[in-house]
């Protein structure tokens, strides 16, 4: 056995071991208690008009953003909770579209979660107390995926609806708009 062959064998073995570190499929069946300790009616303020400096990203974001099971659960909830009724499958209708890169109330996952939990003027109902924090964050992960922000391997390539735009995995990721980036 040549030494080069041996080295490549070891390299392949190490690469295979490294695969086990991939956490795309990491499942969280329960929200961390943190989510439940925010008193009802008191929301972490996530809207920053003008040049206010937003606080650092909520620690929970890492658990849901870019997480395949969370996005899949969010996709299921999106239909079951009738988000489709106003936002359609992302294209918008009575409510604003969700698949573009414009976020009235911020496009960070914690900002989307706050929008879902607290509701927003002109029709968006508040879901706090109707859905658990866990479910709200799953929905936020899915809504964020509609605009092509999460990585391709985390997003389901099979949308639940029968027809529609190309699956998120096949469309190019759009860079966030300058105005959004400045906001953050």
């Amino acid at each position, binding site marked *: 056995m040549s030494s080069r062959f041996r080295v490549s064998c070891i390299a392949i073995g190490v690469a295979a071991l490294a695969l086990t570190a991939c956490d795309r499929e990491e499942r969280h*069946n*329960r*929200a961390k208690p943190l989510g439940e300790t925010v008193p009802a009616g008191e929301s972490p303020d996530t809207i920053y008009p003008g040049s206010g400096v937003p606080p650092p990203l909520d620690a929970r974001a890492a658990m849901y953003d870019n997480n395949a099971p969370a996005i899949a659960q969010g996709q*299921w909830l999106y239909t079951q909770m009738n988000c489709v009724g106003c936002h359609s499958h992302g294209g918008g209708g009575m409510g604003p579209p969700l698949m573009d890169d414009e976020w009235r109330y911020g496009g960070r996952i914690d900002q989307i979660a706050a929008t879902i939990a607290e509701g927003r003027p002109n029709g968006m109902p508040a879901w706090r*107390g*109707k*859905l*658990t924090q*866990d*479910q709200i964050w799953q929905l936020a992960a899915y809504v964020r995926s509609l605009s092509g922000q999460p990585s391709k391997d985390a997003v389901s390539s099979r949308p639940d609806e029968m027809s529609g735009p190309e699956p998120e995995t096949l469309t190019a990721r759009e860079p966030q708009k300058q105005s959004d980036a400045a906001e953050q």
Partner: protein
Amino acid sequence: MTAARRAAAIATTLLLGACQSYQSTFSDAAVEVHNFNILFVIFLAVCAAMYVLVIAFLIAGIVRRRRAGDALVMETGRHHESHPLMRTGLIAWGTLVTVGLIALALASFVGDRSMASAAAHERLSITITANQWWWDVQYNSSDVSKTLRTANELHLPVGVPVRIILHSNDVVHSFWVPSLAGKQDLIPGRENDITIVPTKIGIYRGQCAEYCGTQHAHMALVVDVDSQADFLKWWQHQLQPAPPPRTPLALAGYNYVTNRECAMCHNIAGTPASARVGPDLTHFASRRTIAAGTLPMGKGNLYGWVEDPQSVKPGTKMPTIGLQPNDLHAVVAYLETLK
């Protein structure tokens, strides 16, 4: 392994033979399973007889010594002409195989037809929709006010041909009540059906038989075959809306269930909770199990399930809400009134 332990293991295996028809493919509780068992015996008999013959010839061939000159005959391919007995034997063998196959084909055809003919005499129609991981059961009636929706428990009248229409909301599942009928898949976007004529009063267990995700194993169905009078009584009772809460604790539970997370998914007839995402809870406490056969119905299990479904059935669509103790007591007290 000690001798005692080995004896215990053997005894346990033997005990399996004593299993009642609760979940057994060899039960005799429905016409379908009865026909199928006859078919099974015919197949077993024919195949076993042929197998024994083949093995017997093989052993005879091994034991018998090769005669001088045999090798030559084999190589010329005129083996069957070597001996008149061989010729007769080969013809008999060919006939036996043909007759055996015809017998199997006939038995299979007759069995299949008799099972299919039951569908023509349908007297009760039920729609079962499979979800991850529970069964949505709807009793159809031409009178809409008699249409009944329940979950995870199927009541059937004895001796009545029941046509069960099968749908799925998410992935492929399979409807399997071994004591009553064979398997039938539930396929999203497609309608399947199966007809059952139960012949024995009793309680049977069904199980999803197509891997459908994390909690596939906890997707069971209780089938209760009643006398026709009992069945109608059950149907009448299930049509009633949920009774109003009668104690302050149950009232608190009612308020929680109808206003908070529970009402987003569950339906309780006669209350504002009218969602169709999760199982219907109108007569929840009258059922035998919680969460599609995961736990037997009971106060302790109810507490455990409502407080933390994600520990009992990890991955289930029902979230862990993290109910405060007073809410939990109230919700369980209310759920227990849903008889």
